[in-house]
């Protein structure tokens, strides 16, 4: 492995911080999408659940791509992780909606 140069390291550090900020923001946003204990006893609307699923998928992909550095990984790993994400979250959403 060649010695990493400063420019790339600074870029990586910025990416990591940006990913963390986006992840935290998405967590807080998802919290406001989901009703608290006091609200009506019915289940969530389908649109809200879809939004929660999309947020969850985006968060997982951010962790994989930015924290776990899959974005620089060989193609098979990018496909494998994306495939897991797509299959898992679509299965969860479909089962919830049925």
């Amino acid at each position, binding site marked *: 492995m060649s010695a990493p140069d400063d420019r790339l390291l600074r870029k990586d550090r910025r990416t*990591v911080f940006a990913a963390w900020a986006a992840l935290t923001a998405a967590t807080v946003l998802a919290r406001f999408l989901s009703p608290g204990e006091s609200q009506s006893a019915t289940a969530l609307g389908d649109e809200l659940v879809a939004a929660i699923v999309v947020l969850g998928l985006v968060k997982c992909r951010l962790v994989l791509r930015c924290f776990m550095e899959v974005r620089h990984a060989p193609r098979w790993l990018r496909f494998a992780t994306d495939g897991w994400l797509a299959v898992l979250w679509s*299965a969860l959403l479909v089962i919830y909606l049925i």
Partner: protein
Amino acid sequence: MTAPGTTARPRPPARERRLPGDADMWVMILGDLFIFGCYFVTYMVFRAMSADEFTASQRHLDIDVGVVNTVVLLTSSLFAALAVLAVREGASRQAQRLLLATGACGVLFTLIKAYEWHAEISHGHTIHDEFYSFYFVLTGVHLVHLALGLLVLGVAGRELRNPRRRRPAIVEQCVLFWHMVDLLWVVIFALLYLMR
């Protein structure tokens, strides 16, 4: 693992394709993601079979505790990712401090989880409720992984303390495991707390 044909390069490429950590750790991570995926789908199927009971039970979970736990774990992952960058820079003292911060966040997560478990059990939400049986098993298996993660962070810390070793690859593998613990929690949080 690198691209073939590296004999003549007109200009340095933006970034080489390389596998973070090593292939063995990715066997672990992909396999674990698959196994947990099976658990998550099983949970969702059982939830679909008695959706009203599950929704009623889920209402007793405190979302805010879940949010705090998520942010704590995300922050620990931030520290872990920064630690890897520090190791690559050769700043191993800084990396050790960052790994310590990662572990501290992990311990904090465990304490919050223990508080939450205690609160749920003292409110009478035990495994006799179907949702709570899933809740305790999923969070419990996740906690086992978190404990393994703390162990793995210790391995990385030991690697950094020894000035003759300091192999970046070992630290990368250990941190990858920690990120996986974080990734699984992100799914569990959405599944148990949000999708009600």
